[in-house]
């Protein structure tokens, strides 16, 4: 793997003001309302006016036919920098890395990054039908199982290839549920037992109900600004050590067994100046538990195929060994469309800036948030990661 030239560090550009618009299962509101609530929450948290935010980066599936530009008029803002990230589960990480450069280079001073979606009883089916040309031509006519069916295929293949068993995935889901019990915005508020997990309603073999996220409505957001501005506003902030995005990696792989992180991890650790052993927690993109295992492998926390063994070695709870998805992850909080691409990032900011709503990871200094999205045909095409550090780390 060739590493072109060393990337410029993000220096004194930081992230701050993690906000969550509490999730609801269904909403009559459109996505615009969730963006409005998120932006208002960001302004309130940072004691800023609308006019102070001169950059906006958004991700949303249900805002259509509007996009970021329509939202500016809808919300009455006049930013000088605007971005629309149509990358689903990767939109948080990608919004972050683009906003960092914009602020660092002076194209904007304060960028609001927001992922928001509404959810109505039939909106998921509509999203599926309009998701991509390949999905419409070559996936939907085959049972219309949606992402559940696609990830069932990947899970089936992973289990046979690497000897994972249902109990391994169950352990992750149960640990995340334990973490979610300490997070007020999680939609799931009851402890999950292995028995409930194993015997839940079958969805698409080998997946059962608790392997699948619950679609819902909600929003997540944060602000990117110069450190000096954050300090003058009295905002706790977090540094960004390294980020990556990679699209359509390994097109020759017959089925997805790895993501773009494999191509980027060497540079990520190099830019961050830390190793896998220094990472205190990981917010994986857990749309399905198999993806958590693949991400842990691809980011070098264990070797490819050793995911199941790794699962058996750790507890994954915030107060235990190798905490993941410390607010519960999508599997326990809910998947609010593109907000899911921000969920782990927002939780990581909270963990590293003493703004915890969930159970704190003791003495956490370094955290990793993972983005993954856009299964337009047979695999998730976009992968990203952000390595974050406590301000004084």
């Amino acid at each position: 793997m060739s590493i072109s030239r060393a990337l410029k560090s993000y220096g004194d550009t930081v992230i701050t003001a993690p906000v969550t618009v509490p999730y609801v299962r269904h909403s009559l509101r459109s996505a615009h309302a969730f963006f409005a609530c998120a932006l208002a929450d960001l302004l309130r948290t940072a004691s800023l006016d609308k006019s102070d935010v001169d950059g906006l980066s958004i991700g949303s599936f249900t805002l259509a036919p509007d996009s970021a530009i329509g939202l500016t008029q809808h919300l009455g803002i006049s930013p000088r920098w605007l971005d629309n990230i149509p990358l689903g589960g990767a939109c948080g990480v990608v919004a972050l890395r683009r906003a960092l450069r914009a602020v660092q280079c002076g194209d904007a001073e304060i960028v609001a990054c927001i992922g928001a979606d509404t959810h109505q009883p039939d909106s998921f089916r509509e999203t599926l039908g309009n998701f991509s040309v390949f999905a419409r031509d070559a996936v939907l006519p085959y049972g219309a199982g949606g992402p559940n069916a696609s990830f069932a295929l990947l899970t089936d293949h992973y289990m046979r290839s690497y000897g994972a068993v249902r109990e391994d995935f169950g352990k992750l889901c149960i640990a995340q549920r334990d973490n979610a019990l300490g997070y007020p915005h999680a939609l799931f508020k009851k402890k999950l037992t292995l028995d409930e997990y194993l015997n839940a309603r079958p969805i698409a073999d080998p997946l059962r109900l608790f392997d699948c996220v619950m679609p819902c409505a909600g929003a997540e957001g944060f602000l990117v600004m110069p450190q000096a501005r954050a300090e003058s506003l009295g905002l706790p902030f977090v540094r960004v050590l390294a980020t990556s995005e990679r699209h359509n990696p390994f097109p020759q792989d017959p089925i997805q067994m790895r993501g773009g992180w494999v191509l980027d991890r060497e540079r990520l650790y190099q830019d961050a100046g830390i190793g896998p052993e220094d990472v205190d927690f990981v917010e994986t993109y857990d749309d399905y538990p198999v993806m958590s295992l693949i991400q842990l492998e691809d980011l070098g926390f264990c070797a490819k195929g050793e995911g199941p063994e790794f699962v058996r070695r750790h507890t994954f709870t915030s107060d235990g060994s190798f905490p993941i998805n410390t607010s519960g992850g999508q599997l326990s909080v809910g998947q609010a469309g593109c907000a899911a691409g921000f969920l782990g990032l927002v939780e990581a900011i909270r963990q590293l800036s003493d703004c915890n709503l969930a159970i704190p990871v003791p003495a956490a200094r370094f955290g990793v948030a993972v983005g993954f999205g856009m299964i337009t045909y047979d695999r998730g095409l976009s992968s990203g990661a952000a390595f974050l550090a406590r301000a004084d780390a």
Partner: protein
Amino acid sequence: MIPPPARGDGENRASQSDAPLLPPSARSRAALGLTAAAALGAFKLQVCTSCKAVQYPAREACHVCLSIKLDWRPADGLGELIAETKIRHSHDPFFRERLPWRIGMVRLDAGPTAIAHLHGECGPAPTRVRLQTRLDKSGQGVLVAFPIDKAADMSDDQQLREMTSNPRSRKILVTDGDTASGEAIVHALVAAGAATVWVGHAQPVQKSARLEALRLIPQVILVALDATESDSVKVLAGEIATRTDILINNSEVHRALAPDSGIDFDLARTEIDVNYLGLMRLAREFGPGMRAHAGDGTAYILAWVNLLSVFALGNLPTRGTFSAAMAAASSLSQYLRAEMRPAGVRVINVFPGPIDDDWNQSLPAPKLVPAALAEAVVAALSDGVEDVYPGDVAQEWLARWEESRKVLEKELGIESESRGARDEDAQ
């Protein structure tokens, strides 16, 4: 062409059948190449004409060299089933009623990975499979994975039955039993396990030894039907249309023209009346009932088969007015197909060359024997295709037509002249 189904008839369950469920049918224009292959029962993949890279899903541009010149080419469909799932929850109403539904991921030897319906005998993964195309109930092409070692009968598969019209246990109307091809089709349907075969006849049964013989078959019910009489078609449709699973329209008339005899207007009018208007009368009277019946939720797809002629593709001057009538009927069948598609009723067109029957005594070999035609009809129903060109002559015409319609037209004109000359020599 087809009026809305009548309501209030106890036998006619139209009220619950207004909107039969179909699988998702939206496709990009590029992906319709798969449907075109499936309509003929062929397996084809998109191949880049520049760098030969195989593409799937269908694209507008080669994923290797970016050329926009992509062709659909025959392929063997061999590959490995690398993952499978049984879908137990679907977002689509059609599949929701048919769960669980098995699909898999197949790595084709040709390169790409395809998601496919799985035949019940397939798997478990990993295992070798062969992909074939099928038309699904919406009339669009889909991929189905079959085991490599083909079992004796693959048709008795729940998922496959949702894409095909196997005659077994079906109630079938053959519009004209009093021809060699009609007789052969009836025998083939009975052999394939049809529950009931209504056999139409325009003449009194007593005048036909053929009908007298058919009457002895237990599954056969002779019914009066004259495709040239609207009332006759209407009366029969009133009795059986909402119970008809498969309609086979084989009513036809034609006669060779003597060389240089000019146009025989009476013959032409009869050919139009039977071959073209006959189809229209059947469509008008049977269409609503069959559309209503299609919503009843039977597993097999209801089908409508038209016995046309390969001469519908290009005019054979010695069968000039017959060719024209069949071209009209072929065009009309596309209209019928469009009207039947929303109900999930499949319209199958059979385009044989000359059949070895009473009509074609003067034509030289090769001619398609009626039994071969009948087999092709049963195969088309069982395999779920839309267009069939049975026999060597029809296949050759199809190839010539696909290569260049204009060249075919010119060749037919010349062949006809030389054939006319040969006929004169023989006299």
